[in-house]
């Protein structure tokens, strides 16, 4: 479960990461939060309008490092260390603080 603030943080960090990869004049025209864990590829959908050509699509998620996959459109944003207040809060039984590793699934065909 994420808060709007965490999604805003992810969006800001993604935009910063993409700055070096986007064509000149590209502008963010749309974002969508998908019904996934924020650590799963595909979580945050971003669409950039570009002056010439088709809009560019990206998906951002919290990961272990900063990375932009120009071919796949997947953007991994390094998760921040938890804030002190958050870290001090007691955890619910059975939960862990660590971000669960994302297990890659085999790719399936996508119809065009």
């Amino acid at each position, binding site marked *: 479960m994420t808060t709007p603030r965490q999604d805003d943080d992810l969006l800001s960090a993604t935009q910063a990461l993409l700055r070096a990869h986007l064509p000149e004049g590209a502008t963010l025209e*749309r974002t*969508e939060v*998908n*019904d*996934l864990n924020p650590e*799963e*590829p*595909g*979580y945050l*959908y971003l*669409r950039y309008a570009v002056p010439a*050509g*088709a*809009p560019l*699509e*990206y*998906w951002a998620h919290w990961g272990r490092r900063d990375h932009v996959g120009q071919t*796949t*459109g*997947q953007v991994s944003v390094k998760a921040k260390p938890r804030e002190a207040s958050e870290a001090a809060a007691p955890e619910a039984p059975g939960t862990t603080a660590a971000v669960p590793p*994302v297990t*890659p*699934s*085999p*790719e*399936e*065909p*996508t*119809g*065009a």
Partner: protein
Amino acid sequence: MRVLLLALLLGSAAAINLAAPVRPDPVRTPGDVLTSDPRVICVPGYTKTVRNVPQALKEQVYRSYGILSREDGEYEIDHLIALELGGSNSVRNLWPESFKTQPLNAHVKDRIEDKLHALACAGTISFPEAQRAIATSWEAAYVKYIGPLPGSGPASTPPVTTRPPAQGTPVPSVTTGVLGGRDSGAVPPLAGGSCPAGAPVKVSRRGIYHLPTGDGNYDATRARACFATPAAAKAAGYRGIR
């Protein structure tokens, strides 16, 4: 006992496959456009430049349609508005489409996607027109731009054989006028929306009659009236599938 359990399991598997969506849910998947610019879409190889949907997102789409398990090659996550028609990778444009349902499946939809792409790139229709057509109803678009859907039409519709009712099966008496006064010859459906053996032709709420053989929608149709023959249904003012 084991044989019975096996039969039940096989029956359930068949039911899951038969329940596969043939058309997208308009709320979950209304369709979404990335571009309508023919200077972009009609460039050979355009679709290869568009991203691939992350697998985790595909899994979300399956879950949203209630598909919790599937066999290899049973479905694809399809773009309702195809990439070759300028569709996007947004979740609003994705739905699980069966390869295995008959007569309508992903292969059939591919044909109308190719046709609309060719028409739009030739300038016969516009891309917004093509996008609207396939997002509204890919089946209707197929009929409009290609012709009768597989499994429909007079050439492929086998005649209905009227079977005598099985012994002990009560056949409701013919009622007249219960469905708007045009149903002379109609038989009320049985509980659950099926039709009796003596009047197997189902008429749907939309006023379309479905035949028990050669019609992929027959089993899923809840009849509001039943007829002995398609001719009787037609005479009552209903139409067949296109």
